[in-house]
């Protein structure tokens, strides 16, 4: 059997420059889970429906099962492992809110859900119910019935808004 084509792939993943020799037709989800051992990005439906593999590419939420390596060459990619609070090793306010409000059960959808929430709150710091539903309707959860997730997103929104304000105050 002939050796598969190898290609040089680079991107910034969670703030670190990554160089890999991989086929450019490798799916991003496999780049992350298999080549970079970032298994926080989950694999579930593989057709872009469930959102378990959601990551941020240049700040936009994307199902990583639908993206090929060549499509995100040179991009800035954030996975769940790249999300944290003010300091590395601390929980991001979104993550903290999910823990406090019971916004997860089995937890398998949670990384994708948290990533989508990050994108949602970046775009809408104080989201309406409709914006929450729009922002998260690409993420399926089978355990929670979404109740805890909605409560977590609301709380995270309040926290993030608070953090933003205090940062601005410090700056000014």
């Amino acid at each position, binding site marked *: *059997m002939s050796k598969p084509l190898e290609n040089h792939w680079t991107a910034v993943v969670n703030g670190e420059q990554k160089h890999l020799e991989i086929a450019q037709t490798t799916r991003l989800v496999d780049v992350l889970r298999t080549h970079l051992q*970032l298994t926080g990005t989950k694999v579930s439906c*593989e057709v872009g429906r469930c959102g378990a593999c959601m990551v941020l590419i240049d700040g936009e939420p994307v199902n990583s099962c639908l993206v090929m390596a060549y499509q995100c060459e040179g991009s800035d990619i954030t996975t*769940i492992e790249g999300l944290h609070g003010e300091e590395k090793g601390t929980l991001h306010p979104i993550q903290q809110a999910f823990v406090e*409000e019971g916004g997860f*059960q089995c937890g*398998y959808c949670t990384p994708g859900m948290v990533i989508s929430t990050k994108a949602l709150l970046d775009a809408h710091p104080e989201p309406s119910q409709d914006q929450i539903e729009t922002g998260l309707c690409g993420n*399926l959860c089978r355990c929670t019935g979404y109740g805890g997730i909605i409560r977590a997103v609301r709380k995270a929104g309040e926290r993030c808004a608070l953090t933003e304000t205090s940062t601005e105050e410090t700056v000014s």
Partner: protein
Amino acid sequence: MLLNRKQSGKRWHLRPDGAPKVTGQLQYLTDMTLPDMIHGRVLRSEYPYARLLSIDTSEAEALEGVYAVLTSKDVPGLNRFGIATPDQPVFCEDIVRYVGDAIAAVAADSPERAALALDAIRVVYEELTPLNSTDAALAPGAPELHEHGPGNVLHRTEIKRGDAEQAFATCDHIVTETYYTPRQMHAYMETEGGLFVPDEEGRLNVYAATQHGYKDRMQLARIIGCPEEDIRVVSSPIGGSFGGKDELNVQPYGALLALRCGRPVKMHNSRKESVRAGLKRHPMKIEMQTGMSREGIIHAHRVRITADTGAYATLGAPVLNFCTEHCLGPYAIPNVDVEGVSVYTNNGVSGEFRGFGGNQAIFGMEGQMDRLAEIMNMDPWEFRRRNMREKNDPGPLNQRILVTDGLSQVWEALDRSELWQKHQSPPADPALPPWIKRGVGAAIAMHGAGLGYGIPDPAGGRLSLNNEGKIEVAFSYEEFGQGLVATLEIMLCDLFQCSTSDLSIIIGDTDRVPHSGSSTASRSTTMAWMALQRLQTPFRSRALAVASEMSDIPADELVTGPGGIWRKGQLPADTSEVETDVQKTGKSEKAERTEVAEIVAGGTESAQIAESYSGVSQYQAKLEAPSDFVVSYAELAMQGEADEWIFDTKFDYPTTPDNVVGGHYLYTYAAVAAEVEVNTLTGETKLLDTRHVVAAGPVINPMGYIGQIEGGSVMALGFTLTEDAVMQDSRYVTTNLDTYLIPTIRDIHTNLEVEAIEDLPEGDSFGPRGIGEIGSVALAPAITAAIHQATGVRVNRLPVQREQLVRPLNVPLQEGVSPS
């Protein structure tokens, strides 16, 4: 008590697996890898029903990078599995019976190469006409799918009481209806898979999800032909199950491939393969005839249940037993004539699923109640009350059950609720366009817990002080998301007034836990509670006696507390409660962040390999340990031999004393009201508001309780409105989550309230009841009753067909406009 975070106060307990889950640090068993692992794949049948004429694996075996190709002749032991009736072949020998049937398995150095190898296996079939319905399978002359017939009947059930035929003759009103329920899919987010690792001592380590590690071990040993002790099953954490991973799925293939290759083998089903091969909820046809007097008292009930169990038995028989028991509802009916049949077909395999046949039965029975009440022109809730069983009446199978007030309590609580009160004056909003209709409906249910009379249902557990000075519990239960570990923490902190950092919780590892039964049938919380009740006294007695010797303080002046043994009256007040979020948030923001840092650091360190789920305790936030105790647990643990600190118990789940197979003893009760909005132009139903009232004894873990009821409710919403794994000619048409539609965040009820009734009879020795299923069993009939109030349509088939609800627009036409 209305259950929410605010009401829960200090009992709102943060899950120890929270931080690792929200950071993606937690390694599920399908995330695990080892450097020298290879990849396993299964070749499944091309046809739902066919004779296997030949299988040629030579081309696949010759491929570079392929380590093994296995077929039925490579199974050293029993080529069958199945929890109750082992009739499912690991690899088919001569017949395939459904599209998920396995014919061969391969292991290769990459998933892609494994897929190539599957393509290279040449199978010659003689295609047969599939039995694609229960009617086809029961038709005279239908081929028998299994030798253990008769015919294609897996199981029959029967309840006969009084003389239904005669009673019907005297009834003033009879309602006859046939109900159909869908082939619901569990749709757990993590598909089946795991890692199978043979070790140097010749043992096989199985890291794969199940609801009962010991049962998997027993079945795998039977397949491999080895002693059970040669296998270790690690089975938590799990990315959802809902009953769907209780049966073996990838385990036989991973195990056989790993042993053949002598290397770790990773298996992970794609979603499509998961749909094709995995279990579903039994589709059922339930014919019901219910007769009553002119006063509205039910005298006779006739039921015929037909369940499509698919190609193999799995738990088809117990599911039918449960459905049969629950199709009488919580009502006192003197004349009963019920027959059930579970039928083999060439459709997908039906098995265990949250609610376990209760959902289908309750949908039918509650539908009957609404139809009967309508004939009486009576409030449907009042009609139910008139016919409800009395507190001391026997259970549905005429068996003795534990007496509680649960049924009348949930009835009354729902009756009082604002939501149900809306039913009296149907909600109308003049601002709504005329094609939007609203209605309110309700339903009630009693739901059995545990496996039932006559089925082995062992329980037990182990409590010890381990050599690190942790209070350690070990159970063979699994954490598949329900919050079991958090619940155990709360129970232990309640019992010993200790802090969570004093605890070590071990589950999901057959090498480290005693056999205490499965996590199923809403049983784990009750069984863990009962085990701890039995274990706490010997544990405490020894701990206090040893501490007394060490300190010269009389044992009766000592108590257990955070960090160790304390003098009575000197326990720090704040730590005598379960550590809670409320306490944490009481600290400064900075302090909170520091704690979180510790959580995450612990997570990274331990995420290397999921040795067992006990690892989660490492994520627990560390409190500043108070140090005024008399003797620390660590010092205690150094006294005497280690095994003197280990306490075991064994018992069985409580069952009715009456000889009725499958009959339950402990029941939980639920009442649900639902308000819907139906768009009669599109047929779309939107659930606006629900109230679940649940009587299941004391709430141990409020966050978990709410989560289970909310999650069960939304799963039931899917069952009612959108979910059906459609089969055409015994092949799945809905093969993934883009066509099989589970509720999204947009589809759920915008308001969902949970009311918990915590009362139990004085001196009740069974403690909190499980609530894993009760949230999912009664919503469907409440929604369909609400749809009826909104539209006048009586729904008898789930999921609700939109076209049934579409109505011509009944508004005056504008002048000059004529209907086309």
